[in-house]
């Protein structure tokens, strides 16, 4: 198998590798290939970073307080909306 063919051979396994779901045998093969192939190392690393970027951004995303306020009103649950979440007060 040529070097380029090897890269294409491992590409379908990339997701399982990143998710830790690749069989140990294939994992060893892929890591052996990556030790010699800078292109595949970079593709694996930047794909992992892509996933991490979205997960980091996701952790910090909250629904705006006015969106929550309108939601609770629409659901007739405004008495459960905490003051810190929305603008509703006891008045």
């Amino acid at each position, binding site marked *: 198998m040529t070097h380029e063919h090897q890269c294409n051979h491992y590409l379908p396994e990339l997701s399982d590798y990143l998710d830790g779901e690749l069989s140990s045998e294939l994992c060893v093969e892929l890591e052996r290939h990556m030790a010699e192939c800078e292109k595949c190392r970079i593709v694996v690393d930047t794909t992992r970073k892509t996933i991490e970027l979205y997960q980091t951004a996701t952790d910090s*995303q909250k629904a705006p307080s006015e969106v929550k306020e309108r939601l609770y009103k629409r659901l007739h649950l405004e008495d*459960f909306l905490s003051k810190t979440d929305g603008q509703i007060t006891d008045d």
Partner: protein
Amino acid sequence: MQPEVNIEKLIQHDRSEYASLVEAYTDRLYRMAVRMTGNDQDAEDVLQETFIKVFRSIEGFKGNSSLSTWIYRIAMNEALMLLRKRKPEGFSLDEEDEDEDLTPHEVAAWDPLPEQVLLSTEMNRHLNEAVMLLPETLRSVFLLRDTELLSVKETADTLGITEGTVKVRLLRARLKLREYLNTYFREPGLEIVT
């Protein structure tokens, strides 16, 4: 981690339990809807309609899937319905080209980014714009699996597709996003021509 909600109490229309459910799912459903529709107003509509449908049909929840999967399925269907409405008549949702070559074209190491950049509004906007470039079939899988952290099986159950299809679409989505983001993050001069 999935929030604990008492389904029996929901079926009995316990308002306090409804409020707990809304509290537990609002942020996650809203952010998923923003990224799925690319529009804050549409996302708010998805959020509201999802909870209304959950409350109306909780008695029909059979427990064949987890409550979380069931709620995500309703939300995703709402989002997809809105996207369909936006398309001109006769156009179906964007689907991925299964024969498309997945070989990475742009290969370059990425600059490490400081935390304040990672959490910035601009970064978030950039990530949302990139995800909107994916066809809906790939976007839905990516969001459920990689941002909402559903398992492959839960993602498959939510979208009504096989686990094998989830894996294929997830790989395509990840590689396409990597390619889109590459132009933003790559270190100058380190590109490997392929």
